[in-house]
């Protein structure tokens, strides 16, 4: 009977075409507004690494001086070099990485490709496994290379293709910062949204931009590459001049990640951090009371306010608008279905049960929802296009994936069923005897 009712629903679209069109457009506009804003919220607040987001942790410790201390102060979002290297050696979790931004000139020696500045990051080799970075060629550098602080480099696909075309460049060398660097790997397309692994001053924004190359953390420090990102000094700043003075200071500039074996490691590593601070206090560091944080990926994104309050508000407003559209649709459906009381009477007289009538009219409402959903989908794309015109970052997040596409249709059908419940129930209450006489 579903096919029969569905066909009747399709035919019924032609009946009262103006009323039907109004319903479809009302539903479509409501759905489009909701889905366009929800898509942005979904991309912004989505879990970029769902398989392990609950066991990747960012540590934060409060190294600031006692002066200006107020209870409840948040520790800094980054670590200084001393703590970063101590935590790298701590053995906590199954993997650890420190990350900081670097930018260097790459000299190609080619007339057709003059030297250019490339943006990269300096992590440890654990970085690639921690964040499930896919490799096109080769792989991360090995432990020996990392320990030896050798000049090795992993390129991203775009930089590799810019320098070597579509060939495998692993084993070749490039000149960067006037030194030779051996290519050990090329990563494939990797654009986690948001770019959770480096939310503070990534090369680009939280959603746009890409890191073009990766070199070992200690190699970058050996070369005294300065941080291409946010440097934060509370208190006195470096006591000694130069790079060595910088890395010995309490200024923070390094982002740090632990990978736990499971989500339960969060409490354990946090305890370790507190113990670590207690130890360091004996060395005259950490003048403030112990104040440590360990956040997993979603907590970290929430802490940094990756999703703006205005995005959340506009999503709420859009769903409020959908509710208004739904109420309108209920009214229009009531009008459409009440004009069909005669048909209900005839069908009941010919053997339809109330259940049959309920199914028929609800499926008819569903058909309206389906058509409204398809139109809503087109309007959603229009809405997303408008949103993407606002900024480059918005252009990246205002994109619909298959899940959102399916959700748009589902939302529209669900909304139409919801709107159809009252009118359908009313249609079922028709007294056939009365209708048959008055027709």
């Amino acid at each position, binding site marked *: 009977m579903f096919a029969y009712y569905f066909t009747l629903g399709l*035919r019924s679209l032609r*009946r009262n075409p103006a009323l039907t069109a109004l319903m479809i457009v009302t539903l479509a506009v409501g759905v489009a507004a909701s889905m366009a804003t929800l898509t942005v919220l979904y991309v912004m607040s989505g879990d970029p690494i769902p398989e392990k987001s609950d066991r990747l942790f960012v540590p934060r410790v409060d190294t600031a001086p006692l002066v200006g201390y107020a209870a409840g102060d948040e520790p800094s979002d980054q670590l200084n070099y001393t703590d970063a290297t101590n935590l790298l050696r701590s053995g906590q979790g199954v993997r650890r990485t420190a990350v900081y931004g670097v930018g260097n000139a790459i000299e190609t020696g080619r007339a057709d490709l003059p030297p250019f500045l490339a943006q990269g990051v300096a992590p440890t080799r654990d970085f690639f496994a921690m964040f499930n970075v896919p490799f096109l060629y080769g792989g991360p550098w090995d432990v020996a290379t990392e320990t030896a602080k050798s000049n090795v480099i992993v390129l991203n696909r775009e930089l590799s293709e810019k320098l070597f075309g579509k060939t495998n460049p692993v084993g070749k060398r490039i000149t960067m910062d006037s030194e030779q660097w051996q290519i050990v790997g090329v990563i494939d397309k990797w654009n986690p949204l948001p770019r959770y692994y480096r939310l503070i001053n990534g090369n680009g924004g939280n959603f746009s931009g890409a890191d073009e190359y990766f070199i070992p953390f200690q190699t970058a420090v050996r070369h005294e590459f300065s941080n291409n990102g946010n440097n934060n000094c509370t208190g006195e700043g470096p006591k000694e001049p130069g790079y060595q003075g910088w890395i010995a200071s309490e200024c923070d500039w390094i982002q740090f990640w632990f990978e736990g074996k499971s989500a339960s490691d969060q409490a354990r590593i946090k305890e370790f951090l507190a113990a670590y601070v207690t130890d360091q206090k004996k060395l005259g560091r950490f003048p403030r009371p112990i104040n440590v944080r360990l956040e997993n990926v979603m907590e970290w994104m929430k802490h940094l306010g990756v999703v703006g309050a205005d995005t959340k508000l506009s999503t709420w407003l859009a769903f409020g608008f959908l509710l208004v559209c739904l109420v309108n649709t209920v009214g229009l459906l009531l009008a459409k279905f009440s004009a069909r009381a005669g048909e209900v009477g005839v069908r009941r007289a010919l*053997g*339809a049960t109330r259940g049959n009538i309920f199914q028929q009219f609800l499926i008819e409402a569903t058909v309206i929802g389906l058509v409204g959903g398809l139109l809503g989908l087109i309007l959603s794309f229009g809405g997303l296009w408008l949103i993407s015109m606002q900024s480059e970052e918005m252009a990246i997040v205002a994109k619909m994936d298959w899940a959102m596409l399916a959700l748009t249709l589902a939302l529209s059908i669900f909304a139409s069923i919801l709107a159809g419940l009252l009118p359908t129930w009313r249609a079922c209450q028709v007294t056939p005897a009365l209708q*048959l006489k008055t027709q």
Partner: protein
Amino acid sequence: MLKMTNLSKVYRTHMIETHALRGFDIHVKEGEFVAVTGPSGSGKTTFLNIAGLLEEFSGGEFLLDGVNVKGMDDNARSKLRNEKLGFIFQGFNLIPDLNLFDNVDVPLRYRGFNAADRKIRIEDALGRVGLASRAKHFPAELSGGQQQRVAIARALAGSPKLLLADEPTGNLDTQMARGVMELLEEINSQGTTILMVTHDPELAARAQRNVHIIDGQVSDLLRETNASLAAVAATV
């Protein structure tokens, strides 16, 4: 076929009680063609609605083809209605956006016949009313008489045992009315029981038996009596 004993129907509002039928007795045998007549407000339509299981009754007994319908739930009544009864209305009551084929298809869908069975039954029913060639037409493209024929085809398609007709010629001119009446007589001669409500004494006279309802009660007259009265009237 249809037996009502001491049937009553009371409409209640918080102010008034209206007795539409009281002490209503009728027995329609299988194969009969019974005309129900009576002045407006006498209870004809209420009787037909109860006979058609479209309305519940307040008291008494009602057996439809041997089935006691008292206390039946809505689903069971719908099923019984679909299997045993066919309806013909004064206003034809065809569904305007369905073509003739699909209109006749409606009761068969609820019966659960498969597509092949439905097709055979629809074509046969439309053939019986002489409209087989117009199956793809819509009701608005037909005359009133033709529309009533489609309604008859729809009523016949499910092979009902009892055909309930409420003023079937009320909206038709004399010639069309005659055609429809002849069709009903033909259907009756093939074995279908017909219960017809009419205001038209001429049509009523063509039925085998007349049931006259006054103030919600039956006064049964034999067709023969009716015919002899007509003959007496003619000689006066």
